[in-house]
């Protein structure tokens, strides 16, 4: 699914990376626990989260996550957005809650990311 489609489906606002909305994502992962994000293993994933701080961006950077959508209408501060920009990420924000956001994307064919089991 292209990020432009994610934006439309979730009625989202683009905060960083307007020019990269044609990028494709193949799966999504949703949680507020960054250590859980650090346990999954796929490229080209979208992270949905309600956790708004620098660690969210750092965690995404470590995992090569190129797009984050903040739920429940959360908007990160400028410092957080600058860090995202530095790392060439796309940052979106939607007013939907996490559950609803996931449901909409799943219904439209975006599957969940696999996590590493060992």
């Amino acid at each position, binding site marked *: 699914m292209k990020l432009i489609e994610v934006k439309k489906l979730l009625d989202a606002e683009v905060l960083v990376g307007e020019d990269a909305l044609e990028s494709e994502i193949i799966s999504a992962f949703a949680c*507020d*626990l*960054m*250590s*859980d*994000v*650090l*346990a999954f*293993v796929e*490229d080209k994933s979208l992270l949905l989260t309600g*956790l708004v*701080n*620098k*660690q*969210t961006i*750092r*965690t995404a*950077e*470590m*995992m*090569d996550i190129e797009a984050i959508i903040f739920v429940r209408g959360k908007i990160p501060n400028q410092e957080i957005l600058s860090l995202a920009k530095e790392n060439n990420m796309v940052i979106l924000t939607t007013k939907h809650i996490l559950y609803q956001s996931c449901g909409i994307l799943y219904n439209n064919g975006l599957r969940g990311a696999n996590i*590493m089991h*060992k």
Partner: protein
Amino acid sequence: MGTANLAFNVAKEDFSKAGEASSSIKKTLKKLGIESKIIRKVAIVTYEAEMNIVIHSFGGEIRVRIDTEKIEIQAIDQGPGIEDTQKAMEIGFSTAPQEVRELGFGAGMGLPNIKRNSDEFTITSEINQYTKIESIIYLSNS
């Protein structure tokens, strides 16, 4: 590719800078042309270790040594040490305070995540002295 050595100081409780060392390490590995799967493993190990030093210790250091076969990561802090390292390795066991949990950490996942991404892993600790994590990731083992 030859060998390279990196070392970063990590300050206690400096959450605004937490992750900078791991970010630099990741960028260096990319420049060295290391495979992305391996880089991600190293990134998870260093980032979880860096967060541990920030959250739990009096400050410490992360060292990375890269050669043609493997990447060795050492995270060493100046205490207070872990009483029961086996207990600390259990998924879900955590002594992190509430403000750390609000950052999305402190769920008792860090050390297990480090171990899972390492080909070799050891943790040693002395109360009131140090905790040392050593992780080796082989380049050929992706």
